[in-house]
């Protein structure tokens, strides 16, 4: 009857799924398929009697035995009525779930230890009947699944939204599963569950940490030579034109260039003021023998990257021996955070010299992370202590 094929759209939503996908039309032989599905439900469908249902079955069996034992037609009528009620329960349950569709939304950003909301949009595409009493089991990663009930009556043609707060415990990939959709509707005799493989993959960034900035150190105070810095920022001088990417302010769109090139172009201005830093994250296992310290280092790196970007002092990001990633927009920082989410200590020994960039330029003011004691992590700028966590 239903099929569940997980898929995800780029907007953070999975596609509509459910008992019948929107716009989907079934081919012929509907009645035959329907009857067959009633006799032999699909593998993902599970119908189990509840305590009430078991009680009804026991009562029906008792009355049936008494009816056959006595050939009493009053008992046969009662037995028939109880069986009819069971059938009615199945039919109403089927009607209740029919043409109900749902999709998952898990919009980011996701950070370890911080609550984020998973949404489930629910739509009743039936012509007439409302839908009652559904529940949805959602599990985030290996955590125990959480059940939420549809507490309202969802009328035909209506949509609603249900939300779950999810707190990821650690960084890394996290799968949010819609494990199943169930209902006791209408009489609570049968627990009907539709198993679902609907899933949404999210990447959890390292948890933000509080760090101490050593303002008395010379590292943060050192001024640039006074000239403009060749990097993007919020200065007045036009540095370049580039293609529009999501998140850019509409005020930066250069309409003339966009019209000429037939796609949106935005202006890029040079940054002014203080010279930026290059944040270099080294993941060699020799440096980070303790896993907790490594996690703390990644958290500090993520926090520093975001803070420096906000301060417009982040010039480039480097991981191990990889070429530096110049930072021009937020998306570059997000890419870095995505990488941090997946990093693990490596057995190789990292080089002591910062890798050279694509244009072969040398990097100054490099911020590196070093273990501090048995638990702490220090951020050093050109060998000077800048921050500790």
């Amino acid at each position: 009857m239903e099929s569940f094929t997980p898929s995800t759209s780029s907007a953070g939503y999975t596609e509509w799924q459910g008992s019948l996908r929107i716009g989907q039309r079934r081919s012929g032989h509907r009645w035959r398929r329907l009857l067959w599905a009633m006799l032999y439900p699909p593998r993902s469908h599970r119908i189990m009697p509840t305590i009430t249902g078991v009680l009804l079955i026991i009562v029906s069996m008792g009355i049936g035995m008494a009816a056959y034992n006595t050939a009493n037609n009053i008992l046969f009528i009662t037995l028939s009525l109880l069986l009819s009620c069971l059938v009615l329960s199945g039919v109403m349950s089927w009607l209740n779930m029919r043409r109900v569709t749902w999709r998952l939304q898990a919009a980011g950003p996701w950070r370890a230890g911080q609550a984020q909301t998973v949404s489930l949009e629910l739509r009743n595409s039936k012509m007439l009947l409302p839908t009652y009493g559904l529940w949805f089991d959602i599990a985030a990663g290996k955590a125990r699944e959480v059940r939420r009930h549809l507490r309202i009556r969802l009328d035909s043609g209506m949509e609603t939204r249900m939300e779950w707060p999810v707190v990821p415990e650690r960084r890394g990939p996290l799968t949010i599963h819609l494990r199943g959709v169930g209902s006791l509707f209408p009489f609570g005799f049968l627990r009907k569950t539709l198993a679902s493989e609907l899933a949404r993959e999210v990447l959890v960034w390292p948890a933000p940490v509080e760090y101490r900035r050593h303002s008395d150190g010379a590292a943060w105070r050192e001024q640039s030579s006074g000239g403009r810095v060749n990097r993007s920022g919020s200065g007045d001088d036009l540095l370049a034109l580039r293609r529009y990417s999501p998140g850019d302010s509409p005020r930066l769109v250069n309409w003339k260039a966009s019209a000429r090139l037939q796609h949106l172009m935005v202006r890029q201005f040079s940054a002014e003021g203080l010279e930026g830093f290059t944040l270099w994250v080294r993941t060699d296992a020799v440096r980070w023998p303790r896993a907790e310290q490594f996690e703390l280092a990644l958290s500090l790196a993520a926090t520093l990257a975001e803070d420096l970007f906000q301060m417009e002092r982040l010039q480039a990001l480097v991981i191990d021996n990889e070429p530096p990633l110049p930072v021009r927009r937020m998306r570059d920082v997000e890419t870095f955070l995505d990488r941090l989410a997946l990093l693990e200590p490596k057995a190789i020994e990292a080089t002591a010299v910062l890798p050279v960039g694509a244009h072969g330029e040398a990097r100054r003011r490099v911020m590196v992370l070093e273990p501090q004691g048995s638990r702490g992590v220090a951020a050093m700028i050109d060998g000077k202590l800048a921050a500790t966590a």
Partner: protein
Amino acid sequence: MENSRPQLNLAELTQLRWLLGGLLGLLSAWTVFYMEVDALVALTMLTLSVPVFTLYPRLSKLLPKWAHLLAFPFIVTLFAFDWWQGGEALPAMIRLDLMLLGYRCVAPRGRREDLQLILLSLFAVVVTGVFTVSIIFVIQILLFTACSLGLLLAVTISDSRAGDGGEECSGWERCRWRELARRLREVSDWRVVALGVALFGGVVGLTVVLFLAIPRFEISNSLFIDQLTSSKSLTGFTDNVRFGDVTSIQEDTSMAFAVDVAPESVPSEPYWRMLVLDEYTTEGFRMSQVMSQDFITSSERMTSYLGPRRGDFSGGVWTVFYQPGVSRYLPLLGAFTQITFSEPHTLAQNRELHLARLATDPSKVVGYRIEGMDTSGFIPDRDFALRRAGKEPEETWPMHRHNHNTEEMLPPPTFLDLGVSRPEDIARLAGWVEEIGGRREGGADLARRVGTWLQERHFYSLHSSIPPGLGDPLVRWIASSEPGHCELFAGALVVLARAAGVPARLVTGFKGGAWNPLSGGIRVRNSDAHAWCEVWDDAEESWVRVDPTPGAVLIASTLPAAAGSGMANFTEDNSWAARFDGMRIFWYRRVVSFDSSSQVSLLRTSKDVVQSSAVEARDWLEGRVESLVSWLRAPWSWTRYLSFMSALAFAVSSIVLWRRYGRAWWLGWCSRRAGAGRRDPLRVEAARWLVKVEAATAGTETGRSHSALSQVREDLLRLRFGDRQTWPEPMEVFRTAQRELRKAQRDRRYRQA
């Protein structure tokens, strides 16, 4: 999009649950009224308390906690005491059920308690149904089902509301029922309600189908519930009938039994014999010990028994639905060949008296079919005739018949014992016999004269009395000019016949009945109860039925009645009571008596109906085709031509008008009724056209056709998604779309060519 209709909150749902639970408890408890169980106290308390607690739920909160803790042990203790005191399990269980129902209805309930309430109600309804086998059971079980399903639905919905820390349900007990009714009206959608009613109708239909289709096989076992209660005769006939007993039964107008029989088998005066009373005392008549011992009881419960009449199946088939509370003696017209019950019963037969009785008084309707029943009014008794002639009958008088008190062997009955001890009374009886003319030809002749003599001296009256004084009461009545009822007339004839040396006995049962045209059978009420007598006639070697009550045919006719002539004596009853009785008979005939043979019969009937319907349909179709062909082949005149063209023009113009105006009006009307948030048929129609237009637009990338289709597409998009205020004329847009699509199709064909 938000729901357009409001929803009940959890407190309102809880109030609805409370109301439905109280209603369910009351309905199921009141079913016990139909049972003959002494539960008046429990029922009265429940009837008084449950409505009050249901209407004022805050009262349930006033019960202290210890009361809830002690309630169940107290009720169970009461039940144990009740059982020990009364000695009968079922009445005690019914009372226990009522007490538990009452407690569940007045105490606060959760999901578990609601389920308990439903189970207790089911027990009450089903047990009452099993014991009464009344048609009222249908109404009771349907009401129970509706209330139970409503309650379970409310429980499920409120549980989903309260799930995972949902709504708080507080203050539900401060309910205002009018407000709740208003809210229910607000949240209800008539279409959903109609669908709910239709689904309930579907449940009833499915129940009927399942009832008919559930395979039946006979397990001849005892009805276990029957053994939980002792049986007793509630009203009606017993072995001992005192003067006035039959008259008191006549005051009851309820139905005693109904008979299904073909009209041609009905005799002119059916006398339903139930008891033959041979022993006369000053109290009345009773069945003597020797006659009572002459009943032979079957060793096991069976459904079919052979009667005293061997091998003769004439007289039609009589199906009797015998109501409980009348007697354990079965009403019979005479000797029969075979009797078949719908359920196994233990039957005792007296083959000389041609009587049959059940082992116990039936507590529910007993259905039985009699074949080969003698309706003549003559009860032949060859053994008695031989004994009267001083010969030894073929079967010797059984030796086991003895007096329980003295252990002496009892001689065969002579039906001549007067039962009058005072010599003065005996002398008066002899004098009256002489006055009547004494015994001349035979018993029938004497009975005719005695009956006539009695009718000349006494009038008939239900309210009659025996004059006070010394001596035998019947003799006193005969001597007086007081009016009398059937027992006095019949008793007097028996005594006078015996005084004349003619064996006679009193018979009680029912006489006549009314023909119910709806059910197609005879309906005999308790008010048809009657007493008459049977007099031995040596010439006929039979007992002859004699009814000395004024207004009745005195002597049963020896001439065979013409077929169906008996119907002339029956009055047709078209009253509402008769209609209800017709339904009851249908209930007993088609539902209560439904068994495996009925299933086979139903299957055959269904097969025949399907086959005959198919044949009829084919014949009808062939007939229509033939008539059409013959009509077409007939010579065409101007009149025929004009009428044909008029009909054709009417049909075509109807179609055109419908397509031009009717459909537009219909869609517009539906669209206006759809309202906000509902499926709008005009938008649906626009979507349908939009799909076609977009497909056609993709095929025509340039040209006039493309631009016209694009314009139509925009209009359709506006109809599909736009505000109603900006809509163009919908039907005009649809017509344009149709026109442009045709043009685009023509263009495409042209290009392809």
